[in-house]
C-alpha cells in the first residue's frame, strides 16, 4: 500500500475514535493527534508540566557570515509567509503537546499523582493502559503512525530550498538509490568521483574546521534542525576565532564519508551534521559527529558524537554554541574520540 493511503486511513480511524469520546472526557483518545506530524517534543530538562514548545517561523534567506565580525547576517525575511507559518505551527504544537504527554490510559489508577509523575519523566509509552492483554486501539495506531513517520524520514529528501538558503552545494556518495543506500552502508561512506572533484575545486583547502551536512538516515532531522545548529555553530567558531572552510551537503552519506572529505581537503577537524536513525520518539533527531584529521583508515574509536539534537532534546542553537567549545578541545589535544579521552587523562 502506498504511504499516503495508510496515513489517510489512520487519520480517518483516529478522527472517528475521537468523535466518539466526548471532548474533555480525558482518556487516551486525546493522545492521538490526527493531523500532527509525527514529531513529538520531549522536554528532558524540566520536570514541570507540559510546556508548549512552539516554533515561530524561521525564514532566513541567504544567511551570510560577515568576515571578521562574528555576526551572522540575514537576508530577506518575508512577513506574510511567516504569519501563515506561525498559525499552523501553533495549531500543530497543541496537538504535539498532547501527543507527547498523553493523558494516562490506565483506568482508575491506584495513585494518579504518581502515575502522572512517572509519565512526565519519560517519552516512552508507559501508562497507556490495555485492553485485555493487548494495547488499546489508539495506542496501537499511534505506534504505527510513529513508525510510519520514521520510515518517511529515512526515505525522504532534503529540501533544495534549505540548501540554497544555507549556501550549501550538493554532492553525492557512491549511492544513488535509497534502497541501495540502506543495503550498502559501505557505498555511503565513499564520495563519488564527481563529488571528489567538485569539492576539490570549490572548497578552501586545509581549513581549521570543515563543516559538512548530510541527510544520513533522516532527512527530516536535517530539514528541521540543521539550520539552527549550523548558524549557531558558525557564530561560535567566529567568536572563538576558529576559521572554517567551505561547507557543503552530501546526499545519502554515512558517518565515515568524512574520511574522504579529510583526504581531499585536509582540514584539522571535521564536523558532520547528519540525520540519525529515527526512533519512535523522534524521527528528526540530528547528530554532530566530530573527528580530528579524519583520513582513509581512521578508526571508529577516534570519532565522537553529540547526539539527540532536536527540539525536544538538546536545543539546536545551544548545541551549535556548545560544539564550538568541543572543537576547541579537540584542537588543543589534537585528538578526538577515545584518543582524546586518553590524552585528557
Amino acid at each position: 500500500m502506498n504511504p499516503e493511503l495508510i496515513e489517510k486511513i489512520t487519520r480517518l480511524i483516529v478522527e472517528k475514535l475521537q468523535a466518539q469520546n466526548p471532548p474533555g472526557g480525558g482518556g487516551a483518545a486525546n493522545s492521538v493527534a490526527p493531523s500532527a506530524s509525527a514529531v513529538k517534543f520531549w522536554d528532558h530538562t524540566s520536570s514541570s508540566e507540559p510546556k508548549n514548545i512552539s516554533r515561530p517561523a524561521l525564514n532566513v534567506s541567504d544567511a551570510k557570515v560577515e568576515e571578521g565580525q562574528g555576526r551572522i547576517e540575514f537576508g530577506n525575511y518575508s512577513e506574510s509567509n511567516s504569519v501563515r507559518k506561525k498559525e499552523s505551527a501553533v495549531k500543530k504544537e497543541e496537538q504535539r503537546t498532547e501527543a507527547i504527554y498523553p493523558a494516562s490510559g490506565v483506568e482508575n489508577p491506584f495513585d494518579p499523582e504518581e502515575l502522572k509523575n512517572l509519565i512526565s519523566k519519560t517519552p516512552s509509552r508507559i501508562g497507556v493502559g490495555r485492553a485485555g492483554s493487548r494495547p488499546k486501539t489508539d495506542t496501537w495506531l499511534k505506534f504505527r503512525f510513529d513508525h510510519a513517520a520514521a520510515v518517511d524520514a529515512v526515505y525522504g529528501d532534503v529540501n533544495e530550498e534549505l540548501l540554497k538558503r544555507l549556501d550549501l552545494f550538493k554532492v553525492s556518495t557512491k549511492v544513488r538509490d535509497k534502497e541501495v543506500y540502506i543495503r550498502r552502508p559501505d557505498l555511503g561512506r565513499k564520495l563519488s568521483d564527481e563529488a571528489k572533484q567538485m569539492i576539490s575545486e570549490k572548497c578552501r583547502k586545509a581549513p581549521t574546521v570543515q563543516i559538512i551536512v548530510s541527510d544520513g538516515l533522516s532527512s527530516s532531522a536535517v530539514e528541521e534542525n540543521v539550520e539552527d545548529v549550523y548558524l549557531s555553530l558558525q557564530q561560535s567558531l567566529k567568536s572563538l576565532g576558529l576559521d572554517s572552510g567551505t561547507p557543503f551537503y552530501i546526499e545519502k552519506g554515512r558517518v565515515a564519508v568524512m574520511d574522504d572529505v579529510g583526504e581531499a581537503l585536509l582540514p584539522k577537524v571535521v564536523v558532520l551534521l547528519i540525520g540519525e536513525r529515527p526512533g519512535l520518539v523522534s524521527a528528526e533527531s540530528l547528530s554532530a559527529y566530530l573527528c580530528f584529521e579524519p583520513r582513509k583508515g581512521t578508526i571508529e574509536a577516534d570519532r565522537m558524537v553529540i547526539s539527540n539534537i532536536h527540539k525536544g532534546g538538546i536545543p539546536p542553537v545551544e548545541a551549535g554554541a556548545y560544539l564550538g567549545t568541543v572543537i576547541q578541545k579537540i584542537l588543543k589535544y589534537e585528538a578526538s574520540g577515545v584518543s582524546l579521552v586518553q590524552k585528557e587523562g
Partner: protein
Amino acid sequence: MFNNSLNSKAHRHFRIEVIIIKRYEPQKEDILSAGIDIGTSTTKLVISKFSLMNMAGGMHMPRIEIINKEVLYRSPIYRTPLRTTTTIDMEAVETIVREEYAKAGIEAKDIQTGAVIITGETATKQNAEETIHSLSDHAGEFLVATAGPDLEGIIAAKGSGAYEYSKKTGKVIANIDIGGGTANVAVYKAGKLCGTCTLHIGGRLIEFAGNQIKSVSPPIKKLLQQWGPSSAAKEGDSRHVTVIQKLTDFMAAVIARMLNRELLESDKPLLLGHEPDWQEDIEVIMFSGGISECIYKYETGAAGTAQYDDIGEMLAASLRESKELSLWKWVKPFETVRATVLGAGTQTTEISGATIHVESNELPLRNLPVYQIPFGQVLQDGLKRMPEAITQALEIYDPQREGQNFALYLTEMPYLGFRDIQELAAVILSSIQAKPNHQQPLVIVLESDHAKVLGQTLKVQNPSGSIICIDQIRVEHGDYIDIGHLLQTSVVPVVIKTLTFHH
C-alpha cells in the same frame, strides 16, 4: 565562557588559552560549603563537602549534578552572642567562626558556597545586615542568605528531613521548626512546597533570671493584655505564675489550629506575617529546632545544651501533651536544633546548567533581585514587553537609579531558532540602555537550555559588555540570587533566596 572581545589577534590567542585551562578537564570535583545559623538563642556552624559529577558521560553535552553531600564538621552549639538585647556581638560571632574553621581544619578561602542565615528574632536586631556582610567577608567569599521567615521554614524542613520524608512517602508533612523566637512552618507534599506560616512561638519569648521573670517579648505582652488583667505576667513577677503554663498550652493549641488553617481572631497576636497558605490537609508533623531538642534530646551530653532560663522546656512539655497535636502522626526529625544550619549548609545551593556563558572576573555576584519576564510561548509578545519590563524592574529595584543591578529571568520561552536568539539579544541590549550604569554585568537567567548561545550572541552583538548568562535554574519573581565563582566543571553554584513564598 568567552571572556574577552575578539579585537586583536594577540588577544584572541590569549583568550583561547585561558578558556581551555578553565573549561575542560574535570568530570568531577568536590566543593566545600559552609552553613552558619545565628538564631535567637543559639549559633552553630556546619562544613560539608559536595561532590559534583558530570552525569552525562564524557562525550555527551555535560550535565553536572551534586551527587553526594557529606557533612565534614559540626560545631558545638553556642549561645548567640549579643551585645545588647537589640544588637548582635559581631566580633564574638566572628571569633566563633574563626575558631570553628580552625578546628575543622579549613580556611575561609576554601569555602565555595553556603549560607549564613540569621533567624528568628535575631533577624530583627539592629545590626543583622551588617553582621552578615562582615561575616561573608571573613568567613569565605561564599554565598549568603539573609532569611525571611518563609525561607527559614523551608530551610529547616530540608535540614530536619521533613522534605525527604514527603518525597519518599508522597505524604503531606508539616515541619514545625521552633527556636527561641519563632515557629517556622513549611508544608511539603511529595517533595513539593505547599505553603508556609510563621508564628511568634518560641522558647525565649519569656526569659527568667533566678526565680523571677526577666523579660516578656512584645507579642506575648499583647496577647496577655488581650486575656485580661488576671493573666498578667510582667518583668519581676515570680517565674511560677500559672499563666505561663496556660500560655504554653495555648501556644500548642494555636499550632494545631494553624496546621488546620483555622486560626482564630484571638490567636492573631502570635501570627507573624501571612496566614497559612497551603491547601492540603496535613497528614504528618515533624518538630525541629531548639524546642524539638527539648522533646527528643538528641544532643544530650553534647556541649552547649545547658538549661536555658526560659520557657523552652515548658513549651516542649505542652506540645508533647497537647491533645490536638496528638491527632497527627509525629515523625522524628533527623536533626533537632541543627536542622536550620544543616539546611543552610547543604540545601541552599543549586548548580547551573553546564553550557553557560559567564565572565569570571564579575563573580561572585550577591543579592541580585530577580525580575521575571514570561514570554507566554510567543517570542514577539515577550520582545514587545521587554523595554517596558526593564523600566519596571528599574522602578522597583533601583528607583533612585543608583545602579542596583538585577537579574532578568526569562521564562515560558517558545522554541528558539538562531534568528530568534539574534532578535532576543538585540532587544535585550537595546532595552537595558535604560539602566544607569552600563559597566554593570548583564545578568540573565533562563529557564530553558539556551544560556550558551544567548550569552555568545550578546557578546557578539556587544563585545565590550560583560555578560552572565546561566540556565536551568528555577527561581521566582522577587527572589534574590547569589551567583558563585565558576567551578572547574564549568558550572556556577547559585543560592536562591526566596524571601516570600508565592504560589
